[in-house]
């Protein structure tokens, strides 16, 4: 238990972090993407199976601290805001480690009329701008599909592998999987896929790399599509560097009915695991009919600062990590 009053971030990193923020703002200014601020305090939580929102109780009311500004920003987009970005705090209960802090900084932006591939290019350009400004060099950025990496590492198509096949891969890789409840549902196979991907593939992604076309069952709020092999995939990408997941982006789902049923599926998975159900955000659902086609991305800004400043712990790039409060 750290008792010092001092911040974890040093003076030099504080300056670099400030510079990073300037560069980001200039980047979006140049592209006519406006900065917005949406409430951190919300009336609804997220039903995502693995995210636990922090809750606040004020008399009879319960509020939820946002796990991301997604729902509010989508309501803005639906009202005709055009492309927007935000740098804000996000909160995820129980997440603490060298790359996690319950409260962390999110850089999230949405581009109306851009395809998911255009957005990948834009994320790439932003990272390049930052690396050039801070380190005076350019980096090579790679791009893979989830299946390509999985097949390359395990010799099995992740989109068609059965639960039994995934369990076998886990055993062969010598991975402990005691934390996974084998309920036999989609969430179980996702847990196996995640374990395999995060243990054996992610750490190998040392060079900056985009991974796209995630398994269809991991679509969250992204559109689904069919890839060239005929498998259902999520129009979702992630960006990794030095084995760290830095960003998560989508070709945003605009269908209210489908979003509603995904929320319902989440709650079914929750109940099956003894977790409380989370009421769906009916205002988000109501706004969906007006949500324009857009691609959006959420970047873990603290982690991006960590990598740009060559730090190994989130405690070194934020003012006061949870242990220092």
């Amino acid at each position, binding site marked *: 238990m750290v008792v010092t009053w001092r911040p974890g971030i040093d003076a030099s990193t504080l300056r670099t972090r400030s510079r990073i923020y300037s560069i980001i703002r200039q980047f979006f200014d140049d592209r006519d993407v406006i900065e917005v601020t949406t409430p951190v305090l919300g009336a609804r939580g997220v039903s*995502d*199976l*693995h*995210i636990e929102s922090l809750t606040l109780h004020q008399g009879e009311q319960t509020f939820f601290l946002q796990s991301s500004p997604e729902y509010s920003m989508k309501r803005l987009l639906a009202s005709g805001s055009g492309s927007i970005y935000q740098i804000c705090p996000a909160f995820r209960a*129980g*997440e*603490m*480690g*060298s790359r*996690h802090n319950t409260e962390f900084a999110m850089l999230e932006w949405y581009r109306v009329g851009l395809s998911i591939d255009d957005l990948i290019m834009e994320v790439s350009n932003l990272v390049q701008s930052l690396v050039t400004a801070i380190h005076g060099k350019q980096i090579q950025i790679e791009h893979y599909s989830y299946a390509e990496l999985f097949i390359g590492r395990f010799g099995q198509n992740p989109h068609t592998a059965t639960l039994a096949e995934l369990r076998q891969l886990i055993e062969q890789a010598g991975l*402990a*999987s*005691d*934390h*996974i409840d084998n309920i036999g549902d989609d969430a179980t196979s*996702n*847990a196996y896929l*995640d*374990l395999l*991907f*995060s243990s054996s593939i*992610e750490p190998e992604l040392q060079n900056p790399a985009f991974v796209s076309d995630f398994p269809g069952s*991991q679509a*969250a709020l992204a559109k689904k599509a069919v890839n060239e092999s005929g498998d259902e995939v999520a129009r979702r990408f*992630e960006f990794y560097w030095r084995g760290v*997941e830095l960003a*998560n982006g989508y070709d945003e789902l605009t269908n209210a009915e489908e979003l509603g049923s995904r929320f319902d599926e989440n709650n079914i998975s929750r109940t099956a695991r003894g977790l409380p159900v989370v009421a769906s955000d009916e205002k988000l659902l109501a706004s969906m009919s007006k949500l324009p086609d857009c691609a959006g991305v959420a970047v873990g800004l603290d982690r991006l600062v960590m990598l740009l400043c060559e730090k190994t712990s989130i405690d070194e790039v934020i003012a006061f990590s949870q242990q220092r409060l």
Partner: protein
Amino acid sequence: MATFSTNEFKSGLKVMLEGDPCSILENEFVKPGKGQAFNRVKMRNLKSGKVWERTFKSGESLEGADVMDLDMEYVYNDGEYWHFMKTDGSFEQLGADEAAVGDCIRWLKEQDSYLVTLWNDAPIAVTPANFVELEVAETDPGLKGDTAQGGTKPATLSTGAVVKVPLFINIGEVIRVDTRTGEYQNRVKT
């Protein structure tokens, strides 16, 4: 005994797992993409000495283990138990069985200090110091020019341990050995 949750797991913490006391070596919090958070924990089973890797759901808890490490002096063995004496002035003796002494059996020298791990006050493991000084009980006289084994020959020490030593080492000499690797370090001038 208190219980500890995954976010309290620190290196050195002693916990119970599957009925055995274990010492936590490493605790890594993992949260894949939008997946389930878990802790990947490496721990050493203090009874078997084996290293286990297990994953736990974040927030899961384990019971603490009543484990203590004590500095003790080796006194003697009666064939069944190896007896150690506390060095805190109490002169209290505890007996460790063969399983508890384990590999340390080849480094036991009377009156030398050892780290004895106690679980519920009973010895379950004995660890020697990093270096011990032991007498050579048996070895061939090294002949000059005999480089068949790269200039070393086997020597049996007073404890029964067999160590590779330089050719000039003779019976009766005391040598310093690294217990972690079983390697000869140097000759000790007596």
